């Protein structure tokens, strides 16, 4: 169990700095926003919470691509499937490793990037809370998508297509929390919904992922 986690983390660090890259992508999306919608501070501060959430989601998404693909290509998944570790556990661990290398850095970086987009002062706490609660769901759902597309060459874009609609509820509640937080209105209901989604996906989705992966390996 921990062996797999440690290996995944180590690979993320070595393979071209996987740790920093989701973060860098997040940074760049946020930086590109003013270039595309124009530099007005008032406009930016209105869209800031939403854009930060969307940026986090997209960077998560981009890094899903190779979550299982490399392990599939080099035969690691075949061996894992014959190992004593249940596949459900292996996939949960991989999702956890994905979260630690992408979700967590995003959560930590979001307040800094909030400054770039003039996020209102009261919004920071809510933004961080919503990201911290929501990104684990993104990793788990993403693992399901990765398991679906394992073995499909050029699966990257297909993966995005499959995963994005599944991300919608998380995004809606997460962005809603951040937005309400920034406006100073009450955000507990969406926060609870978000927590519910995250818990439910963590508890249930690995089973779907494992069953999908077993069939995909054939």
């Amino acid at each position: 169990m921990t062996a797999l986690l440690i290996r995944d983390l180590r690979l993320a660090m070595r393979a071209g700095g996987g740790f920093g890259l989701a973060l860098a992508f997040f940074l760049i999306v946020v930086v590109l926003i003013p270039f595309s919608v124009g530099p007005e501070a008032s406009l930016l501060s209105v869209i800031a919470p939403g854009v930060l959430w969307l940026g986090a989601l997209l960077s998560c998404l981009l890094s899903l691509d190779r979550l299982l693909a490399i392990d599939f290509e080099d035969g690691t998944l075949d061996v894992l499937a014959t190992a004593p570790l249940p596949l459900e556990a292996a996939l949960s661990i991989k999702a956890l490793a994905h979260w630690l290398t992408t979700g967590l850095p995003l959560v930590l970086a979001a307040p800094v990037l909030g400054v770039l987009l003039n996020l209102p002062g009261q919004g920071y706490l809510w933004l961080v809370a919503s990201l911290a609660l929501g990104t684990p769901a993104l990793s788990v759902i993403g693992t399901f998508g990765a398991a679906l597309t394992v073995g499909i060459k050029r699966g990257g874009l297909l993966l995005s297509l499959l995963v994005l609609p599944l991300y919608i509820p998380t995004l809606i509640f997460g962005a809603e929390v951040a937005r309400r937080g920034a406006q100073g209105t009450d955000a507990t209901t969406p926060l609870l919904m978000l927590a519910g989604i995250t818990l439910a996906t963590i508890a249930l989705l690995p089973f779907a992922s494992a069953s999908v992966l077993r069939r995909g390996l054939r």
Partner: protein
Amino acid sequence: MELHVENLSLARGGVPVLTDVSFVLRSGQALILRGPNGSGKTTLLRTIAGLQPALRGQIIGAEDQIGYAGHADGLKAMLTVAENLTFWAEVFGQTDITAALDAYALHPLADRLAGTLSAGQKRRLGLARLLVTGRPLWVLDEPTVSLDTDAVGLFAAAVERHMAEGGAALMATHIDLGLTAADVLDITPFRAVSGTRAGASDEAFL
């Protein structure tokens, strides 16, 4: 440890490949599968390893017994040789990798990244992985590809030691493995004959 394969029929991509394969493999035995390209050796090995379903027939005694090494090696280019082995050892609940390093003379390479190994060195590492699984039944698909004569010798020695310790090995190959005592199973007679309704997975549509 005994592996019983009974009347196994296999398909690949909906095409029947082998029919009614039966054999028994016991502790201390090595069985070499032979057959021309495309005859279904890889399919058979993957099925026994539990990676794909059989059309019909039974495999008894394979559960949690198998160390599988296919065409790909399951190595990470960005981990060192020792790290790769340690990882697999831990996944299979083992701790010690020195025996594996010894068996394939990998000590001098232990701190090299696996991605910088030559084809044969990689293969040696892939085979060393079997020693850290602690599994009694090795299922190997063309294990000696890219190996030079010395390395083939190391492999043969490792297999013989494994058999002496009560293990067994099932291998597909086209070339000589240097094993002295091994049975050979030619799978050509089991090839699914075209025109039989031997067992396409799409049988429902025929």
